[in-house]
């Protein structure tokens, strides 16, 4: 592998985490994520896959251990502002993600937070909608969308921030084959992306990732194929 592609994006060392009054989800947990990697994350329910995403985004904080992202240690809320601007997390439930009245505004929310100006935001909006096959959805009301549409719009809201790294939490769940195929194509036509996908859809992971990580009992094991 080329030197540049070996750049470490996420480095988690000796991390412990437990939800209040429950047993440890992670104990002395180690995980590295490199630029260019496309990882499928599988594991039984409750094994901590979503928790890992939330720790990376600074929505949860570890009880012990170190999280290093983009070569800097991330400890407090302010450290994660940059992480959130550069890593895109798409939540499992689109109702958690969408809050603006119209699709256009929800998608513009991220770019506007990145202080893009009006013209840039409009341009990003248009491109995002086209890329995700959502052209014409601008003025649709987000809570009137069908579930599948909501999922795509959720992805669009994160896509619009143009992250190089994506964290997708069960992106195919409840979706029909056609929509899943659409997501596969979108991901595969953007080779510059690195991502981690939590999914139980083996076919989907085979088509979109080049490495599977099995998570169980707070440990992670990399295998190169399914």
């Amino acid at each position, binding site marked *: 592998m080329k030197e540049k592609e070996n750049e470490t994006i996420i480095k988690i060392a000796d991390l412990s985490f437990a939800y209040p009054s429950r047993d440890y989800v992670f104990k002395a947990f180690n995980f590295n994520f490199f630029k260019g990697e496309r990882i499928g994350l599988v594991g039984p329910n409750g094994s901590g896959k979503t928790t890992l995403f939330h720790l990376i985004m600074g929505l949860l904080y570890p009880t012990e251990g170190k999280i290093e992202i983009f070569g800097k240690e991330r400890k407090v809320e302010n450290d994660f502002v940059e992480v*959130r601007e550069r890593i895109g997390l798409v939540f499992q439930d689109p109702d958690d993600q969408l809050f603006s009245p119209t699709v256009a505004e929800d998608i513009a929310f991220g770019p506007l937070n990145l202080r893009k100006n009006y013209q840039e*935001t409009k341009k990003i909006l248009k491109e995002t909608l086209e890329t995700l096959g959502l052209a014409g959805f601008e003025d649709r009301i987000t809570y*009137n969308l069908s579930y599948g549409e909501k999922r795509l719009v959720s992805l669009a809201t994160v896509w619009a921030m143009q992250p190089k790294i994506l964290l997708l939490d069960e992106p195919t769940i409840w979706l029909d084959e056609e929509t899943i195929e659409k997501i596969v194509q979108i991901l595969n036509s953007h080779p510059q992306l690195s991502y981690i996908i939590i999914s139980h859809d083996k076919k989907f992971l085979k088509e979109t990732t080049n490495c599977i990580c099995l998570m169980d009992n707070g440990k992670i094991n990399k295998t190169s194929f399914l």
Partner: protein
Amino acid sequence: MNLIKEKFSEGDSILHRLDPRVKIIVAILFSVMVALTDKYTLLTGSLLFAVGAVAVARLRAKEIISRLLVVNSFIFLLWLMLPFTFPGKNIYTLGSFNISQEGIKYALLITIKSNAIILAGIALLSTSSIFNLVHALRHLHFPDKLTQLFFFTYRYTQTIHSEYIRLNNAIKIRGFKPRTNFHTYRTYAYLIGMMLVRSYDRSKRVYNAMLCRGFKGKFWTLNHFVFKKSDVVAGIVMLSCIIGLVLLP
């Protein structure tokens, strides 16, 4: 989808098409004027203005009346209390209670004021969707916190409402019928408790999703309103009506 209908915002009258910023400004000035005055000529004029605005907005009378009934049921309570308790000239004695003229006047004043403000509010504000109002507020440079509060109150009423529908369906499909017994009370208590907990949870998750997209406490707007000639004209007409009312003898 289970959304709370904004019945009055669906329409195509002059008032529906008017720039919400104009409507907000007129509504605020009107309400302040009505709230501060106690001249009956001015109040009657205001009430006429409000009724006129509702007529221009071409809203369904039945729905207007049903809304007014809700407000006036509270005002009815005032009519039960004020005439008997407000000190003033005694005009009638009912058993051991005295009815005072000032009390009646005062109750009447409140009735006219509230109805005028509510009607003007329906005609001017309800004819825009909540989202347009929120935008307009932002463009009028209202404090961020207030607009956010307004917007999220609406957004989460929606959330609580849809959680309620979800839970209600869950108990219905398992054969629940409300009766006058402990089981029913307990079920409703669970439903309400669960509804609040779930809505709270959901709002936290939405907030997290916002943080993940770089939210730092400030909303940036995408669309901008453009003043049309008709907005300026309508604004001037309504403002002159209000000024005219104030200048009435």
